[in-house]
Every structure is written in structure tokens, then in C-alpha cells.
């Protein structure tokens, strides 16, 4: 296998390096209305897994569906899987800086506990107002994938040069045999 293949391998892997990056967006996990607002929450990755996952919120006016720009958002995630008397609870604020899409606010959440979680979203200071709007929905976190799948693409990378190399050699052999 020509050594040039190794450089090719690294170029390909460099280009692949962005593949696993998180992005706000993903799939909708909740959509609901409270007072004059409509909240839609996205989760990424799909399905959400133990480890790190991203929750993003789009808040719209309930009637006009115009996205609302100014508001505060806070998340409380409570695990429904009891471990003795212990219940895991995660509280976090959402913000626009963590979201790529400037219409959304998002939060990166990390937990090691799989199973059903109850998510409570509280939205306040909507367009400078004093009301709080609350939303609640369940979220199922699936267990972490086997570690192999996180790196499968890197493990399989040498296959590309190997197969191309083999194709070239087999062709050479076939040509020599036919000569």
C-alpha cells in the first residue's frame, strides 16, 4: 500500500473531523402553548442519549407565530429513575450564545442516568413582561451507545485505502496473467 495512502487517510479524517459535532436543532421533542406563547423544544442527538445532549428552544407568539426574541428560559430536568432515595435533578439556564441558530436559545446538558426524565421549562420576561409560563414534558434518555460505535468510523477508515489498493493489485495480477 503506497505511503501516499496514509496522507490521504489523514486528509479524509481531517475532513471527517466535524462529523460528530453537536448542533442545535435535531428533532422536536415538545411543542405546546401557555398564555400567549408557543414553545417548541428540539433535541440533538436523536434519540437523546446518556452523556451530552443539546436542548434548544424556539419561542413564538401563539397567534401570529412570530418568533419572540426577548425572554429568559430555565430548564429543570428530574430523573424519574430512583436510585435508593436519590433523584437526580439538573437545573440550567438557556441562552442564545450557545445556539447557532439565532432564533433559538439552547443548553448543553450532561447526565449519566438513562430512562425517563421530566423536563420543566419556565419562560419569563417575555418581551420585558413579568409573567412566567411553564411547560412540562417527559424525555426518554436512551443508554449510552457501545463505545465502539463512537469510533467505528475511525476504525473503518483504513478500509478505503485498503480496498483501493487491493483493487489495483488484483487488476495488475489479472493483467499479468492474461499477458
Amino acid at each position: 500500500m503506497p505511503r501516499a495512502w496514509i496522507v490521504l487517510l489523514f486528509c479524509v479524517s481531517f475532513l471527517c473531523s466535524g462529523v460528530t459535532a453537536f448542533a442545535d436543532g435535531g428533532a422536536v421533542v415538545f411543542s405546546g402553548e401557555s398564555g400567549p406563547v408557543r414553545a417548541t423544544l428540539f433535541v440533538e442527538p436523536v434519540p437523546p442519549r446518556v452523556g451530552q445532549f443539546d436542548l434548544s428552544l424556539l419561542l413564538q407568539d401563539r397567534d401570529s407565530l412570530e418568533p419572540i426574541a426577548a425572554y429568559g428560559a430555565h430548564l429543570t430536568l428530574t430523573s424519574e429513575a430512583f436510585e435508593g432515595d436519590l433523584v437526580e435533578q439538573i437545573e440550567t439556564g438557556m441562552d442564545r450564545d450557545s445556539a447557532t441558530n439565532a432564533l433559538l436559545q439552547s443548553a448543553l446538558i450532561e447526565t449519566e442516568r438513562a430512562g425517563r426524565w421530566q423536563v420543566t421549562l419556565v419562560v419569563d420576561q417575555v418581551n420585558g413582561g413579568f409573567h412566567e409560563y411553564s411547560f412540562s414534558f417527559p424525555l426518554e434518555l436512551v443508554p449510552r451507545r457501545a463505545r465502539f460505535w463512537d469510533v467505528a468510523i475511525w476504525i473503518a477508515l483504513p478500509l478505503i485505502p485498503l480496498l483501493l489498493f487491493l483493487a489495483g493489485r488484483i487488476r495488475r495480477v489479472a493483467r499479468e496473467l492474461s499477458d
Partner: protein
Amino acid sequence: MSSDWQAFWISWRFDPGLSLSLVLAAILYLRGWMRLRNRGARQFTPGQPVAFFGGLVVIALALQSPLEVFSGLLLQVHMLQHLLLMFIAPPLLWLAAPELPLLVGLPRGLRRQVAVPLLRDEGVRMLGRALTNPIVAWLLFVLTGWIWHLPGLYNRALTSNSWHVAEHASFLIAALCFWHVVVAPFPHTRRTSRWVVLPYLLLAGLQGTALSALLTFSDRVLYPHYQTVPRLWNMTALDDQAIAGAIMWCGGSFVYLLALSWAAVEIWNAPQALAGGGRGRATTGSGPSLAVIRHSETLGGHVAEKPSRWDLLAIPGIGTLLRQAATRRTLQTILLLTAGLIVLDGVLGPAISPINLAGVLPWIHWRGVLVLGLLVAGNFFCMACPFTLPRKMAKHLLGGNRAWPAFLRSKWLAAGLLALFFWAYEALALWDSPWWTAWIVVTYFAASFVIDGFFRGAAFCKYVCPIGHFQFVASLVSPLQVAARDANVCATCTTHDCIRGGPQGPGCQSDLFVPQKTNNLDCTFCLDCVRACPKDNVGLLAFVPTDQLAATGDGTRLWQRRDLAALLLVFCSAAFVNAAWMIAPVVALEQSLMQSWSIENRPLLVGCGILLTLFAAPAALLWATAALSRVFAPQRAGDSTLSALARSYLPAFVPLAFALWCAHYAFHLFTSAGTLFAAGNRMLADWHFASLSEAAAACACCGEAASWILPVEILLLDGGLCLSLFLAYRTAERQTDSSASALRAWSVWAVLLLALFALAVWILMQPMQMRGTLVLGG
């Protein structure tokens, strides 16, 4: 402007990897294009860079602009993104005839050693021919479009970042193949009549129309994802889908029409013969990549190029600095002082490894930096080695002119000591014993002082030092080598000061003669030869990492030496054994063996394990593989014994083993680098130079390994595997008489290498003991 539009315009997703690739491509293209223009290549016009940069900008816009960010909310935005990737960027890129400029724009070494061999490779040429075949390219383009628009796959790409990247990559690749046939950029010859392009485009346009119509006129939402997301700008999902279809229809048809008109004008203007064959160029039939190489050579690929390799010593500043004997002495003094601190702390400090300099510096930092240095440069640790600093004094005190005993002039002793070192590491848990570590350092100093004091030259380095021999073998894969800049200069040299020494300084103490040097074995990077050579003909030259191990001619005899084979065997098998001994399943196996056989003497068990796994099992495996490869493929006459055959393939295992060493030691360095603060702070506090810091102490605890570490480790193994497979193939070619036999023989060794790769990956994926750190929570 409304706030949501404002939000749209500021929602950019910057991807450093992609941006860097695009900028790099632009720089390479411009460099190559300017070189070609300067050499009078009239085929390269000023409009081409504009087209090329335009193509790159379109890719950047499609993948990093608000189009990417909003593609999950609006199908029409997603469709516009696909249009840019499939219909705008590829034709623009091909109109710039980018292959030659990109090739010529590469640095010379990379072009000659990597790009040209890659383009000449039979597999790449086959792939190139297949992908630019009009039928294949058309089918690829059309099928990619249809398959990704199937609702299941489309939805998957919308909810998973990895699938989204795969979707875009396949669109771009398929479109590049498709438009290559249409544009046939210089220097390619058109493989079919220009007339073929007309139905080629027409049929593609027709199927595109069918797909667009399906979207536009469908009375239900085809992609349920868009039904679940909030609707922006009061647009229903069905309207959004219809607009998306229209964008695809109008945009695609416009580009097809433009291309059709262009092809028609070309046919109209071309003389008869051209319409049937290409643009006035002879058909070569040798494949696209060869055409690029040939033209790069004729258009200036090797014009006015110096024959020399890249030379680290030729770099202003760095070169001057490295040549100075004082630089080496300074580095050695720094390491000597560090070694002194290690010994002091090891003997006087607490016997808790993570907060003792003797517990962390040698086993976490030094090893990690050492292998990474070997990977990216060469054997710079030997250059800075403190053990040889007092060599002159030792020779003065003890005579220093006795010849090293003839029966020890081999690598047996070093290989044995290296194995002994690995045994001691496990049996005495050296990483966990600052006291032992300190005394090993002291013993090392004493041994090198006595041996170098009694014997001529660098006897300790060349015949004894196990650390040095580890580095000698590892540096066989390093990119830098001390070598003659110009062989012709050496051919006329009469003084040979590089080995004998002369007015400018001593010659090589390891008895290496620079013009005959083919690898880094025994070379301590002391650079005495550089300073001694009166003709300034010795440099630190760049070689491709397999050059040293893939020796031909006389060089192959070197690897037949049994003592050297033993050294390589220890190096390779220890890579696996040393890494495996820190993973949970092996630790559990060891404990269960001790329990079930009631073994109390752990060093004895480790000794048996080391003998079995470092020598017996690997030797048997090599022997069996050699036997199998001989059954599969008859060898050339002369290579009679199986052990000789196994020895000739042994160098091929070095890159994979070195990759595992790098991955293993880099893991400790990356996960536990902070322990230096803990140990340093504790030592300073003990000596009343500072107060104990809680923050520093926290660094002694093992943290969680960052998610990028495992992919980097596996990437290192990938590189090692490819180099090893390549070397094994080169050996198979040398050992057999025909390509068929070489392939058969190689396949047997390739299976073994793949199995070892799998074993290495498995080891790296196991829970590892965080050696050298405090483990919290028991």
C-alpha cells in the same frame, strides 16, 4: 428588517476544519496556477482562479451560512443548499481546471513522495476511470439524488448531524463526477464524443424534473420532520415543499440549459474530428490521474528543482541553533537538573506517585513527549540525554580507550535489557514507586559513566542503553534522519571527518559513516558529524516514514541479523503487552491466575508472562505466518528457512507497534498532564518555596478522558496499520517472483496485521488504569 430575518442573517455555523480545508485549497490552487502561468502554460487563464474561488465560496456558503442552520426548519432552504452543492459549486470548480494547479501548488516533497505516487497507483487510476465514465457518473448523480430524497433517509439526515454531513458529502462527490464529464477540464481528454453530452444532460434534466414535480405537486408533506418543526413566516409545510420543488426545478433546469447550450456551441464550433474525440487533444487511454501527472511534469512539475530534501538544519535560526554544541549541552544540563530533582523527590519525597516528581515526570510527561517527538521529528531525546553529559569526564578519569568486547558487539544485550526493563516496570510497579524510579535513574547514570569511562566511543548508547534502543527502533518510523545532503560530495571526500573527526570537532562516536547511513539505528542525533564535516554536507533530512524500513539491496541484509530481529521483536510485542497490562480484563486475568494457582510471587508470574508474551508467543506467531505464506506463495530461491522469512517481514510490524506506543503514552500525557502541577507544588511546598495549593493538588486526580482522545489514538493506529501493510507488501514483492505470488504472500501477513490492529483497538477501548494519578472514590 424583522427580528426573525435579522436572526436568519446572523446565524452562521463556522466549521474550522472545513474553512481550513477551503482556504488551503485556495492557497494551493493559486500557488500552482501562478507557477504554471509563469512557465508560459497558456491553458491557464485569469478567469480560472475566479471560477475556483467562486466554487469554494459557494461550498462555504452552502455549508456554513444560515442556509445550513435553517435547513432543518425550511425545506426550501435545504433545497437551495443542495442546489449550490450539486449545480453551482462543481461546474465552477471544474471550469478552473484545478487538478494541475493543485498538484503543482503542493510543496515539492509532498507532491513527489505522496501525490504523484497516489495518482500513479493502479487502484486510484481505476477509481478515477470509473468515476469519470459517463454512464457511471450519470448513474451516481441520479441515484444519489433519488436515494437521499427518500423520506426515511431524508428525515434521518435532518435529525442527525453525521447523516447530514454524509448526505452533503455524497451530493458533492456525485456532482463533481457528473460535471467532470460535462466540463472535461484540462488536461483530461474527452473519452466519448461531445455529442454524448447532449443526451447525458437532457436525460439528467428529465429525471430532475420528475423529482422536482413530485415535490411541487404532491398533496401531502413528504418529509414528516417539516410537519413537526414550528412554521416560520406563516408558511405551511406543504407550501414550503412546493416552493422547494420549484427551486430545484427552476435552478436545476437553468444550469442544465446553460450546460446544454455550451456543449452545443462547442460542437458547432469544433471541427468534425473534435466533436468525436475531444478538444484537439490526443486520447491517451491511460486514465485521468496519469494525464495530470504527465502534464504536471511537462508544464513545470520538475523544472529548476533542486535534488535536495527538506532539511531542518537549513532553516535559518533553528538550524544554526541545533548545530551549536552548546545547544546540546544546554538541553542536557536542563534534563540533568530535572533528573536530579526526580532523584531527590523520589528518595526524600512521599511514596505517593501522583504527587511525587519521580512518579509523574518520567512515567507520564517524559514518555509522552518522547513518543510524540519521535512521531513528528526524530530521536531528539538522545540528543538531550543527560546520561552522556559526563562522558568526557568519565573517559578522562577511567581511560576510555578500551575496545568493547567483541562478543557483546550486537543487540542481544540491549534487547535483553529492554525486556528486563518491561519486566521490572510491571513486576515492581515502577510507575507507582518513586523510590525505585529514583534508584533506576541513579543506576543508569552510574552504568553509563562506568561503561563510557572504560570503553571507546559511545559504547553505552550503542550496545547497552535500553531506552536508547527503544528510541533507535521507534525512530525508524520518524520523518527526520541524519544523512548526507549530496552523495556526490561524499564520493569525492578524502578526510571522512564525519566518522574520524577532524579540526572542526569529533566524529561519530557510534561509528556511523554518514554516506553509508540508511536509517536512524544507533544514531543519537548528537550532530557531531554535522559539525565535523568540513564540507557542511550533513543535514537532518526529511524522509517518508517507510523509507528506512523498506530498505532494498544491501539494506535488507541488515534486518536478517538475529540480534536486531530480537530487538524489533521486543519493541513490537512490548507495545501490546505494556498497553494490555493496564486494562481491566488483563489485570483481572492476572489476579485470577494468582488466586487459582495460589501464586504468591508476583514478579515470578510477571516474568513468565513477559517471556511468553514478549518472545515465545510472538515468535511462534511469526513462524506460523511465515510457514503459511510460504504455502500460499512460493518464495524466491535462497530464502530457505522459515525464520529467515519471518525476520524479513519483522520490520513491517514496527509502524503498527510504534503507533500503539504513541497512542498509549499520549493517552497518559493527555489525561494526566496536570499531575506535574500537583507534584511540583507539593515539592516546592515541602521545601518552603511555596504554599500548598488546593487547585494544584486537584490536578493529581484522574479526570475523565476527553472525547477526542480515543479517535486520535485510533487514527494513530490507522496510520500505523497502513504503513505496516505497505511495508509487508514491499517485502512480499521482494520475496516472490510475480505479482500474484506477492499478493498471496502479502495477504497472509495482512491478516495478521489486521488482527493485531483489531487487538490494539480493543486494548485502547478497554477501561484503563489511570496510572500515575489519584483515583477518587476508591
